[in-house]
């Protein structure tokens, strides 16, 4: 059984007991435990089931590389699936549930898949689910969704209880990894005076060196770490963060650090995760190495574990995964596990060494009374939910002549692979190290920065060296090199001297036994989470998958949430062998960020709840909100769609507003319309280029409606332009267009006409603008003036249609434009934004006797549609030109050039078959569906009905008592009176007559009074 030892456990505090639960069972652990170590201490070896075959899975590693021990953590609004037990720090009240099983962990229906595994080989899904076609949607996909899928998603009604944030940080040198290599690199880099940041993913400094033993400068490793940490903490130019993982390295020295602030103490005030967005001149990756599993049959049975992980559990947490252990290895390092287990009082039955010779550690093991079997291998591990016995054989051969040994845990070591992820994320290349049988960073091909020089250096075992002394020397050099590359001068200091027992060379062992027969290969796991076995990769190779990237996708090797941290190298070695190729030729798959999964919420950062997205508000926003506003998003603005009164539907409100504005008085908050000041001696010339019509001839005090096209001739914006003085114009844009058109103007001024004397300023938000609309519009303004002595004469004579004046309206400094988008008598009045609400209040108050009502954007739309006025974004969609909309009158023939002019002469632009704007009236007065297409005779090459147009705007007009619409119809203006058919998505076909788009007051008499 797995159990807590009486002594050992450098990271736990035995005086502080912690209570937690797993699948509803209450258990005890200690402060300092991980969930994995605490589960092992409670003899909970089986922690989950695999993805495909639902095979029992126990913890195999002790850190970030863990593929098996994934749990659902927490409850309610703090529930999170797929959390690794090995990186989850234990806390009081932790609740966890295992995953991938039904009905429960011990008995699982889905595990029948394991007996069908002969029929579920690599590529099974691809092969099986192609035929028959309808089966995919109705049979296969629902079944796969049911049986697959790791942890459960949080309940849809729960909301994450925690907050998250980003933080921008800038440093000369960033060191990723706080083991002895990272600490040493940080120290020498900081000694140069460089600003250094050191991040470590676990809660502890020193990495695994204190577990592995040896001495540094003749002192125990622990002591060295302690001293180095306190030295670094005392330096002002060093920032240290533990529980902060280097998640990804990107271009220009940009690195993401994922800090878990309160995962180990949920509910604490402050953010849960902080995503560090770091800019570093130089990055040192001191990310260590990960031990590889050995591929033998039954290497996935709970109780089979990495040798280093087993050592960690003993030394760090005082836990042994078994009472009687067998160690299988191809290197000397695993002997350390055997020795530590033995010294902790655990029975070590055998060390099975695939090699024939081992180093001095073997002698030490023998002296402790451990049997060492050179040249031997594990043929098969037996047991279902727990290791029961192991069959041993010779490494050479197919796995015959087996000897059976009863045991309850197996430690395996296939050698070590440097963690090259951070090196590789941004393009660092790797080389194959034959002696250590691993890929390591190629120092001559680092990730390159903007200056063409490398900006990442690998240090310590992540760079290849595995012996303590070599690790320290390498890290010391990397730290100094990083400081130098960041522009500092490193001090000439000696690297610390690390000493450990010398090791004999390891042997590359990719399969155990070397020529294992197919029965064994079918049970030799490469990817534990995704259930990919040696036989699957070999099958893929036989079926022609030569590229490692293709094999990965075909077999799902390395595609699980651990991204193949344990499986990739073993898998590609098997692939290389099957292809009769060499490992470096086969190569690795791509290392992509993040290193381990990070919370989506940390990526979102602060952007949730009320700051999920900026919502732009006009000065009268709160008034609208209190007065029944049904909101509509327009760009980032919120505009009132309609002001809904108690007892009204939105549709009722719109109809009321439409009628009242035509009959009495309506107020519209038009503050969102863009207002750009264009000034300078060349401003007129510039605006003549920007607009299709002539703006330079506009007289001071007058307004003109203008159209803007892109250089490709398509309509991009429209609005009223007012000439303010001799060299100043004010250009109104659409609500969504202010920033875009401002940018458009600046782009032309900065890149094309840089020598024209023009300045542009966006003053949109300086003003609250109110449209005062309706037959009573003048009356209310005159009343305001009478009340507060406003001096602006708003009479027809003093302020005619399409002119503007500055002056006082009531008590307000105002600029009034006699412009109308409704066809009624209308003033658009701009006042300073900080007085916008007061102005609105004054109008509402004075307007009472004139039947004033505020109106929203839908009313605005209906009023303009009744008048046949086009709307950018409704009648235009980026493919429409002014000619399509019958706006020829706005295309200046006098001007030599303007944006879009040349494009309008292109053959397709001048094509008489283009769809053109017309009015549409249904034969029965109903409302046409928005966006509906008009169908013509015949079918196209795809057998679809030919289309001859579409609806661009459609409304119910309360003033006219019927549906009205505009649309673009092929040869439309020539087909007045014809009936066109519009099939709706509701199955009905709507019939509409082509009519003039102006439905109301065709001569424009009402606006010009």
């Amino acid at each position, binding site marked *: 059984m797995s159990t807590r030892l009486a002594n050992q456990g450098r990271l736990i505090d035995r005086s502080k007991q912690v209570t937690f639960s797993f699948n509803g069972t209450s258990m005890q652990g200690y402060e300092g435990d991980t969930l994995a170590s605490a589960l092992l201490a409670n003899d909970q070896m089986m922690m989950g089931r695999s993805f495909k075959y639902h095979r029992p899975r126990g913890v195999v590693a002790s850190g970030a590389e863990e593929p098996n021990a994934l749990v659902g953590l927490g409850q309610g609004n703090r529930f999170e699936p797929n959390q690794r037990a090995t990186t989850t720090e234990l806390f009081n009240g932790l609740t966890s549930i295992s995953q991938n099983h039904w009905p429960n962990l011990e008995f699982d229906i889905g595990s029948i898949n394991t007996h069908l595994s002969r029929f579920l080989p690599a590529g099974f899904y691809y092969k099986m689910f192609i035929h028959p076609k309808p089966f995919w949607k109705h049979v296969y996909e629902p079944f796969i969704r049911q049986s697959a899928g790791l942890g459960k998603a949080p309940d849809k009604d729960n909301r994450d209880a925690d907050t998250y944030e980003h933080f921008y940080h800038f440093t000369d040198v960033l060191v990723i990894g706080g083991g002895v290599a990272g600490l040493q690199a940080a120290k020498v880099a900081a000694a140069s005076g460089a600003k250094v940041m050191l991040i470590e993913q676990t809660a502890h400094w020193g990495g695994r060196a204190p577990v592995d033993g040896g001495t540094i400068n003749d002192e125990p490793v622990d002591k060295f770490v302690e001293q180095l940490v306190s030295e670094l903490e005392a330096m002002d130019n060093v920032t240290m963060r533990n529980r902060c993982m280097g998640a990804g390295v990107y271009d220009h020295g940009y690195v993401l650090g994922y800090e878990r602030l309160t995962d180990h103490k949920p509910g604490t005030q402050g953010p849960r995760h902080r995503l560090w967005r770091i800019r570093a001149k130089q990055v040192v990756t001191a990310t260590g190495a990960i031990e590889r599993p050995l591929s033998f049959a039954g290497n996935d049975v709970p109780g089979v574990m990495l040798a280093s992980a087993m050592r960690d559990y003993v030394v760090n947490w005082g836990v042994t995964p078994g009472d009687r252990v067998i160690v299988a290895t191809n290197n000397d390092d695993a002997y350390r596990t055997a020795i530590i287990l033995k010294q902790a009082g655990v029975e070590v039955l055998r060390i099975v060494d695939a090699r024939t010779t081992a180093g001095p550690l073997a002698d030490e093991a023998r002296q402790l009374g451990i049997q060492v079997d050179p040249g031997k291998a594990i043929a098969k591990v037996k047991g279902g939910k727990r290791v029961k016995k192991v069959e041993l054989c010779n490494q050479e051969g197919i796995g015959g002549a087996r000897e059976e040994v009863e045991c309850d845990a197996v430690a395996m070591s296939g050698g070590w692979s440097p963690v090259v992820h951070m090196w590789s994320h941004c393009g660092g290349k790797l080389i194959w190290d034959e002696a250590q049988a691993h890929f390591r960073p190629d120092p001559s091909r680092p990730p390159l920065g903007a200056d063409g020089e490398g900006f990442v250096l690998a240090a310590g075992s992540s760079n290849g060296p595995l012996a303590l002394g070599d690790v320290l020397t390498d890290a010391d050099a990397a730290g100094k090199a990083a400081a130098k590359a960041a522009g500092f001068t490193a001090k000439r200091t000696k690297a610390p001297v690390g000493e450990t027992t010398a090791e004999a060379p390891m042997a590359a062992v990719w399969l155990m036994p070397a020529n294992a027969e197919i029965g064994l290969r079918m049970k030799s796991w490469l990817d534990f989470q995704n259930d990919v076995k040696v036989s699957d990769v070999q099958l893929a190779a036989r079926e022609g998958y030569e590229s490692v990237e293709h094999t990965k996708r075909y077999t799902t090797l390395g595609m699980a949430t651990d991204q193949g941290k344990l499986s990739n190298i073993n898998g590609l070695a098997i692939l290389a062998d099957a292809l009769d190729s060499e490992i470096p030729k086969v190569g690795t798959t791509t290392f992509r960020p993040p290193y381990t999964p990070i919370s989506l919420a940390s990526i979102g950062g602060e952007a949730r709840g009320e700051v999920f997205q900026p919502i732009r508000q006009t000065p009268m926003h709160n008034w609208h909100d209190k007065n029944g506003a049904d909101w509509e998003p327009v760009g980032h603005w919120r505009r009132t769609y309609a002001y809904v009164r108690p007892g009204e539907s939105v549709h009722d409100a719109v109809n009321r507003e439409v009628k009242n504005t035509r009959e009495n008085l309506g107020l519209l908050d038009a503050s969102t319309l863009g207002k750009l000041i264009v000034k*300078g001696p060349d401003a007129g010339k510039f605006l003549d280029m920007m607009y299709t019509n002539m703006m330079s001839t506009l007289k001071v005090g007058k307004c003109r409606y203008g159209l803007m096209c892109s250089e490709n001739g398509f309509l991009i914006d429209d609005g009223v332009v007012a000439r303010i003085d001799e060299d100043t114009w004010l250009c109104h844009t659409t609500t969504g267009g202010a920033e875009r058109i401002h940018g458009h103007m600046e782009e032309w001024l900065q890149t094309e006409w840089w020598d024209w004397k023009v300045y542009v300023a966006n*003053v949109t938000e*300086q*003003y609250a603008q109110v449209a005062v609309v309706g037959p009573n519009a003048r009356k209310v303004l005159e009343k305001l003036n009478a009340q507060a002595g406003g001096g602006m004469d708003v009479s027809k004579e003093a302020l005619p249609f399409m002119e503007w004046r500055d002056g006082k309206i009531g008590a307000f400094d105002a600029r009034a434009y006699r412009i109308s988008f409704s066809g009624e008598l209308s003033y658009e009045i701009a006042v300073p934004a900080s007085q916008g609400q007061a102005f609105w209040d004054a109008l509402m108050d004075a307007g009472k006797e004139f039947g004033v009502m505020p109106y929203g954007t839908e009313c605005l739309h209906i009023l303009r549609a009744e008048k046949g006025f086009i709307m950018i974004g409704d009648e235009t969609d980026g493919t429409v030109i002014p000619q399509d909309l019958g706006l020829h009158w706005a295309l200046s023939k006098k001007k030599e050039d303007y944006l879009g002019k040349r494009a309008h002469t292109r053959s397709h632009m001048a094509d008489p078959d283009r769809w053109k704007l017309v009015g549409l009236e249904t034969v029965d007065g109903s409302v046409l569906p928005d966006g509906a297409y008009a169908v013509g005779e015949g079918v196209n090459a795809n057998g679809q009905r030919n289309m001859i147009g579409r609806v661009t705007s459609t409304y119910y007009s309360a003033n006219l008592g019927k549906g009205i619409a505009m649309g673009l119809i092929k040869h439309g203006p020539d087909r007045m009176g014809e009936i066109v058919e519009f099939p709706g998505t509701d199955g009905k076909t709507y019939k509409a007559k082509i009519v003039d788009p102006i439905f109301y007051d065709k001569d424009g008499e009402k606006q010009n009074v």
Partner: protein
Amino acid sequence: MSEPISALNHASFEGIAKVEECGLQGMITLRGDLSDKALAKAVKDATGQKMPGQREAFVEGESGVCWMSSDELLVLVPYAEVDAKLAAMTKTLSGTHSLAVNVSDARAVFRVSGTSAREVLGKIAPVELSAEAFQPGQIRRSRLAQIAGAFWMDDTETFRVVCFRSAADYAFNLLKVAAQPGSEVGIY
């Protein structure tokens, strides 16, 4: 004229830093050739300050001048004086190609103060805010999470933050989130 009211009417919040809406601030966008003497005179007359260099801000209380781009300044004057100052500036600049325009009401201004003020800004603006890199006398035009914003320091623990008026509500809530209790980063 009715009483002008700023976007959030002096709302405030206290977390790891104090966040306050400052109320109305007179602001003039001035575009022109920054090396032009008339421009320098107009700035000096309006604010008493000399022409700022790249990313510099010379601000005393409600008066000052901030560099916004190679041909744009933000001139700060007391709100009540903005019309008079703008008129004087326009007069000084008559005959000089330039654009001076009142944008006082187009903006919202916040004060973020306290020992963690740098960290609050460091969570929402991609700007190096260490004391070595950023000091009173400098300005950054950057972004505040999802909106455009600019800020300078009035003293070593106080930022003034400017954004568009329509985004005032977002900016205030954003600063509140960034200044939430318990969220000290421990860097600055």
